[in-house]
Structure formats: C-alpha cells, structure tokens
C-alpha cells in the first residue's frame, strides 16, 4: 500500500462521514456542497505535508471543511441572499417536511448563518467546529494553532454574541446573557 494511501486511510477515511455532513449542514445545496468538497480536497492536496505533520490532522481537515463552506456561504449570502431560502436543488423526493416548515427552516438557517458571518473569523470557525462538528476544545485549539484556553474563549465569545442576535430562536430563552 502506498504512503499516500496509508495516510489517507489513517487520517481522512475515519472522518469522511463528518466531512460530508459538516459541509452539507453549512451549505445545504448539492452543487455548492460538491464545489466545497472539491475546494477542500484541493487545499488538502496543497497542504498535504502540513496536514501529515500536524498534531491533530483530523481536526485540521475538518477545520478546512468548515472554512471553505463558511467562505462559500458568506459569498452566497452577499451576492444572492434569496438563494439561501431556496430548498436547494436535489432535495430528496418525499421529504417529510411541509412547505411551510421548509420555509421556516430555511429562514432560521439563513438567520444563523448571517449571524455567524457577523462574528470575527476565529470565533465563527470555533463555534461551527463546536456546534456542527462537536469537536473538543483541545481539537479546536489544535486546528486553530492556539492554546485550549484561547479556543474556549473564542467559543464563549461567539456564543455570547449569538445568544443576543438569535435570542428569538431559542425556545429555552431565559433572557439575554442568561442562556
């Protein structure tokens, strides 16, 4: 088995599912998801040496997925905001949601992504890695190249801002700052 193959099977194969799902959850559009994956793979190829030598290569790859998907949605929001509310091409036939639920889900998604786009980049990446990928603070820190305490701070600050901006979405809302 080749070096590349072994490295792929060691690093990427175990997180393929998480890569696919995290890209999809952020971009929600089949063609965009394919474009994001293509860009992610290009970056992985370019940074192959760095990824192989990284302390936590899997979290770095997952961060790349987040970064590329985030960039694409940011551009999409800026240039064609209406597209965000689309159900997206390729919605499975026989979806269980009603049209009204689809619209509502699309609006909530758009609100969250718009709010995340307002965050500083490190905070946005951190909260997405935490909320979408369920990464540990240690893994987030390794991917960001910072200390764990700093990663915690990024996530905490992101949460604090999002709580304010998205308070109306939270059914458990007990007041700004108290969530």
């Amino acid at each position, binding site marked *: 088995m*080749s*070096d*590349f*193959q072994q490295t*792929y099977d060691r690093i*990427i194969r175990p997180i393929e599912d998480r*890569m*696919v*799902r995290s*890209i*999809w*959850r952020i971009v929600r559009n*089949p*063609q965009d*998801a*394919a474009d994001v*994956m*293509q860009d992610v*793979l*290009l970056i*992985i*190829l*370019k*940074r*192959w*040496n*760095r990824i*192989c*030598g*990284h*302390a936590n290569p899997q979290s770095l790859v997952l961060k790349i997925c987040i970064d590329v998907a985030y960039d694409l949605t*940011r551009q999409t929001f800026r*240039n*064609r905001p209406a597209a965000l509310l689309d159900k997206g*091409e*390729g*919605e*499975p*036939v*026989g*979806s269980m949601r009603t049209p009204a639920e689809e619209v509502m*889900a699309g609006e*909530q*998604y758009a609100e*969250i992504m718009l709010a995340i786009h307002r965050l500083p980049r490190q905070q946005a990446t951190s*909260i997405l890695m*935490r*909320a*979408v990928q*369920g990464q540990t603070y240690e893994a987030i820190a390794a991917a960001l*190249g910072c200390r764990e305490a700093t990663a915690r701070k990024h996530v*905490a600050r992101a*949460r604090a801002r*999002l*709580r304010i901006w998205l308070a109306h*979405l*939270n059914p*458990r809302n007990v007041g700004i700052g*108290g*969530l």
Partner: protein
Amino acid sequence: MNTENDRHFDELIGDILEKNLPADVDRRLRWQLESFRCQLIEMDKSGVHRPMTLGRTKRRAVLCLAGVAAALLVGLAVGLLGSAPTWAQVVAAVRAKPWVHATVKTTTGKTAEFWLSAEREVAASRDDDRICFDNYPEKSRYTYDTRKKTLVREPESRVDREQWQSMLNLFDAVFHGDATLSNPLPGTQLVGQKHRTLTEAGRSWTDYQLDLTADSAGVRLTFRVDPRTRLPKSMAFVSTPHSDAPKMASIEAEFVFDYPEQGPADIYALGVPRSARVDDRVPHGELARLLDGINNSRDKFPQTYLAAVSRGNAKALPQFIWRKGEKWRREYRFPRTPEDRAAFKRLSPPPAGPQAAVWWKETTKNWRAMPMEICDGAAIYAQVGKTEKDEWKKIENGASLRLISNYLPERAGYPLPPGSAWSCSIDLDMHPSSGPPGTVLLTSRPAADAATHVRLSRFWVDPAKSFLGVRQEYSDVDPKAGPNRGIDTYSVDGIAQAPNGVWYPTVIHWKSTTGTGSKEESSEQTWTYSIDFTTDIPDALFRIEGNK
C-alpha cells in the same frame, strides 16, 4: 449551569443547521473523496506533487532530475558566472551523458536509486517496496511490487507524459539558450542563491546553493560540481518546516550522482524475476482505437470560447467560463440594481442551443461580474474578496484545468474513463443491447486490487459523432454481483458541433437513484452548455489585479 446552557445553545445551533443529507449528495461527495484517494494513489505512482518530501522515495527520479534541471536553468537565467563552470556548461555536460544514475539516502534511513536516459526516453527506479520502469516511447510503465511479487504493465498516465515533457522542455530551454522559465519547479519559489569554490581533501569543488520555499517548508539544494568534468557529484537536500507548520520534522537527503555508459534495458534488468506473471492492463485493438478517439476529440476541441453553463432550470443564472488556451476564468454575474433584479425576474428563457451563451452575455453585460477563479496561464488565483472589490489569492502554480473540469463541455462529452490508475479493467462491447443506437459500450469494472468504493462505470460512445460519450452510468456495484445501491446516469439530450467538427453536449440530464420500489429516492438536474466560439476574449479578462 453555564455548562448546561452552553451545551443547549450548541445543540440549538446544531439542530437548526441540521438537515437531512440527501442520498445522492452523500454519494456524490463520497465519490469525490474516493476519486481524490485514487488521485493520490496515481500521484504516488507517478511521483508528482509532494516534491519537498523524501519520505516517499519511489520513482522520484524524473522529479528529482527535473528539479535539478530547473535549478540549473534558474542559475543560468541570472548568470552565475565566474571562474567556476556556468550552469549551462554543467547542464550540457549532464545532457551529454547517456545515463544518469543516482542513489538517494535520507536521514530516516530510506534509500532508493534511479536511472534516467533522456536519449532513450526511459526512466527507472528501485526501492524497498517497488521497482518501476517507464518507457515513454512505448507509452507504458511496468511496476513490480516487491512484497506482493506482482508485475503490472499499465498505460502511461497523462501526468507522467506531462512530467516527462516538462523535463525535456527544461533541457531544451537550456540548449536553446532560453533566458527565462515560466514555471521552473511547481509548488516552489526561488528565494535566494549563491555559489562558492572550495577545496576538500586536496580537490577543488564548486558548490551551488539554491534556496526555495514551498507551502509548508523551506528547501535548500546544494549541488557539488566537479569544475574539471562539469558534472554534479552530489546534491544535498534539506527541508526545514516553516515555523507555522507544527510538528513537522526536518528532512535531509543526499543524492549521489554517477554517469554510467549503460543502464537498465528493461524492468528485468533491475532484478525482477523473469518468471513473474505480467498483468497487462494496456488496451489493445479496437479498445485502444476507441480510447485514442475519445482522447483525440477532447484534445482537438477548440480552446478559445465562452461557455455559459447552467445547472437547474433554463432560467438559472449560468456560470461563465472564458477559455483562451491555458488561460481561463470562471465567473458569475449578478443583477446590480433593483431595476436589473426586477428585469431578471421578468426574463424569458434564453434561446436554446449555442445562441444562449451570446444571449446571456448580452443580457448580463451591465450586471456585476464576480470572477471566482482565474488562471492567467502561469498560476491559478481564487477570489477571496469580502467586499465588492476583487481580491485574489494564488492557490496553485501552473495552468491546470482541474478546478473547472466539471464545467468544461469537452470534459463532459469526453470523460476520462477510469483506467489502470483506478485499478479497473475496461471491456468493449461493439454491439450493446442497451443504450442509444449506433453506440458502443465501454464498461469499466473494479479490478481485484481496487479500492472498495470504486464503482462500475458504463460509457456509451458514438464513434460517428467524434467518439462523443452520449450516456454515462455509474453504479455502486456490478449488477451481476447483487442489487444496486445507487445509480448515477448522465444522458446527453442535446448536441452541437464545434467549428472544427468535434461534437459536444449542449444538454445533459443527470439522474441519481438509490433504493428500489417504495424506498426509491431520486434527484434530477439538467445541465446546459451553450458555447460561443466567435466572441472576442480580451487578455484583460485573465489579468489579476489587486492583492494576490
């Protein structure tokens, strides 16, 4: 309490962002991953990319020598003159030798050796795991796995051919006295150089030192040249990771050159037992003719055009692909003003066929153009602007089309059938029982040593339409082996002819199906390609301005 609230908040975000992953998207992305893995394997075989890592010593011969030649050229371009031999003299001396042989030893203890003959267009390499022999005139490669004791003969890959050609071009440039080289060593930049003369053990040497920088490491190459023979004796390679590349080890290697009169005539001369059975995967006869036909049509397709590529309904905003030889640009255009947006909503569908490209170009000429990627012929740049102002970042050296291959009509019409690199076998059926009339069927099946996710592929090709692929099917498993888990079908529903007679698809209908009966799920999409071959394509479209 805060921890609890934090968890709930993260779950809230996660829940809202949760959305069922459609089966076809899942398959498509996994297919991209598997393709990427196969690409890595192919690169590992051919020795491209990762030029700064010597952990993998297989078949580094061509790349190494290309690096040497590139370095020599760089030196020539800036004129490292003096009492020492010039780089041009060194290159000429190397070129005059029938064979170059090198042994490589890294600090990690790995060793390898390689042979190269520019005269015979042959390269060979040997290490602990593998023995390779590339015969470029024969367009084939032999690979012997020393552990599995298997000998495979494969068709030369395009990557190999380009790499070999690139190396020959480097040599040619030297002999033609070219002063500059557009892309001396992909993935690296020359940041410094010097030379010195020294005496060691009573012998005089000239050391030429080149400092290069790559994505994650700095590299220093030091050639030691005998001023009397003008031949390099050795090359020291030191790769030092940049400070922001955590936990990467430095790599050092020593290449020692010699110049024998004779080299290996074939792979058996490198120690492969003649009793080894050859698994011959090089296409023959009608199959070879058909594959050549597909490749020729793809290569012959005009390289200057504007394509409007839409996915979805006919009114979906297209992507504009501007292509001029090796230069290309992918862009979107968006209505800039409320009036434009209102006009867009009222737009009638564009005319069918190739005229749509002109129609879209004219209709959107005052809209905001947003280029996403540009290749200026020397490198590829991606848009990273956060505002309306374009900002560019170089993402790749060279003029590859890989990034936009999904949008190119010549790639859609003349796909690369999976070949040996994917560990597939290809069969040809001249009279298939299914598919469009007048077509022949290529079926690519995973070989026994294929990766688990390689799919069965079927291509219906029309020899009377310049070998256009008119239907493609990809399925998860061979129908003979069991029930299908999913099929992706691409049917060409409209075609047109380029000015030089090569056919291309104008409409492709994609359907993806998973499951059967009541559990069947499907997605469909229509892709349209309209091409204007006559439009003026100014070079300014490919110029990168602003921050790179």
